[in-house]
């Protein structure tokens, strides 16, 4: 956070006004996403011992990690609201839109984390790529720059990245005091919801495969 502020806000002077608020409003939800995905990625491998001893469904392991990182993020979000208030961004009626944005992000976190966690037992070396992938996503999601500064013809494509879109939603609500693109949010929510359902089915199909793959 301090590094971003110093490099982009002070040295490159790219931040614009209220760069701290802008950065915080993006970093907080980003950290939730990245910590959940990186901590979940090896959860099934970590649960190998237990899965061998007890016939426990594999979905249990990623879910525990997601729950942990989500609970840890709650005080961080509260702190974000406090700091934003301190910086002059007081709650408006629009903040009610945070509820669906948080819900869609939770679905996205579950979807991405569970997919990564399910892939890693089959392709163990992927574990080394998770953090690289997260860094790549961070750069593509506008955590520390405003997407409106990229060429206009790329902006729509940029927002197809669900993380970039969600971060933009948070900023629209918290900093601009406006509603985000509800239609886009609804479509993303529906896709993530359907994805989560598919993940549930996938995990129940793989129920007896995971213990075998882990011991092979």
């Amino acid at each position: 956070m301090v590094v971003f502020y110093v490099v982009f806000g002070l040295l490159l002077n790219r931040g614009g006004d209220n760069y701290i608020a802008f950065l915080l409003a993006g970093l907080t939800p980003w950290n939730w996403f990245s910590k959940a995905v990186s901590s979940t990625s090896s959860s099934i491998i970590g649960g190998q011992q237990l899965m061998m001893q007890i016939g426990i469904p594999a979905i249990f392991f990623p879910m525990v990690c997601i729950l942990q990182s989500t609970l840890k993020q709650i005080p961080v979000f509260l702190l974000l609201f406090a700091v934003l208030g301190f910086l002059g961004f007081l709650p408006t009626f629009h903040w009610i839109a945070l509820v669906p944005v948080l819900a869609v992000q939770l679905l996205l976190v579950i979807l991405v984390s569970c997919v990564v966690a399910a892939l890693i037992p089959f392709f163990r070396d992927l574990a080394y790529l998770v953090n690289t992938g997260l860094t790549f996503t961070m750069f593509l999601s506008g955590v520390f720059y405003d997407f409106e500064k990229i060429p206009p013809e790329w902006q729509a494509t940029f927002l197809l990245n669900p993380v970039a879109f969600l971060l933009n939603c948070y900023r629209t609500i918290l900093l601009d005091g406006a509603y985000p693109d509800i239609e886009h949010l609804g479509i993303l929510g529906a896709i993530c919801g359907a994805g989560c359902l598919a993940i549930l089915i996938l995990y129940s199909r793989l129920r007896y495969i995971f213990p075998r793959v882990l011991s092979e």
Partner: protein
Amino acid sequence: MSAIISLQNVGVRYKQGGSLIRQRRYLQALSSVSIDIYAGETLGIVGANGAGKSTLLRLISGVIKPNSGWIENRGVSVSLLALQAGFDPNLSGRDNAILSGMLQGCSRKTVENQLEDICEYSELGDFFDRPVRIYSTGMRARLGFSIATIINPDVLLIDEVLGVGDKHFREKAEASMLLKIRSKQTVVIVSHSMAQISRLCDRAVLINGGISCATGEPSEVLEMYDNLTMSAQ
């Protein structure tokens, strides 16, 4: 008497290696195993290292499914005596007992009601309320076994775990296992200790080369196993 769990010509193979460039090979852990498990009996499983005994227990407990043959569980709960399942080193022995007991199918209440018994059985004293990470290996094993004494599935699977702790505790552990076995508990036990098998079991199965090659009286099966190891040498 009808079997509560039946295995018919069950085979399990594990994938070995295999990638885009190398051809996939398989390890046939079990090729054809047929066993019936009856209510109330104590069944011993013997076989050399790598004969597939642990794989067999995983099959019976329902952790994996066979590649061939079929396995039928007629509505009984099975659990592998899983010592130290889900232990969190940062939690106290007491919390780990609750956690591990619940993981093995007890309700929270059942475990909590028996916490004092577990504490006493494990002989951990004050250590029971201290984090498990400071325990010695033996203390950990004792706690694990103490938790296991309270779980009561229809069929209990035991994989080489009776050698727990020092001599005194080992005798105590075997005594309580004996108590469980003498009660109507159905037990399947894997052990390399011939003495244990012949002392504890009503029936024994010999697994060799992935095949259940003998079933019957422990003394007869053990004799066959002896002959087999002799001829291998």
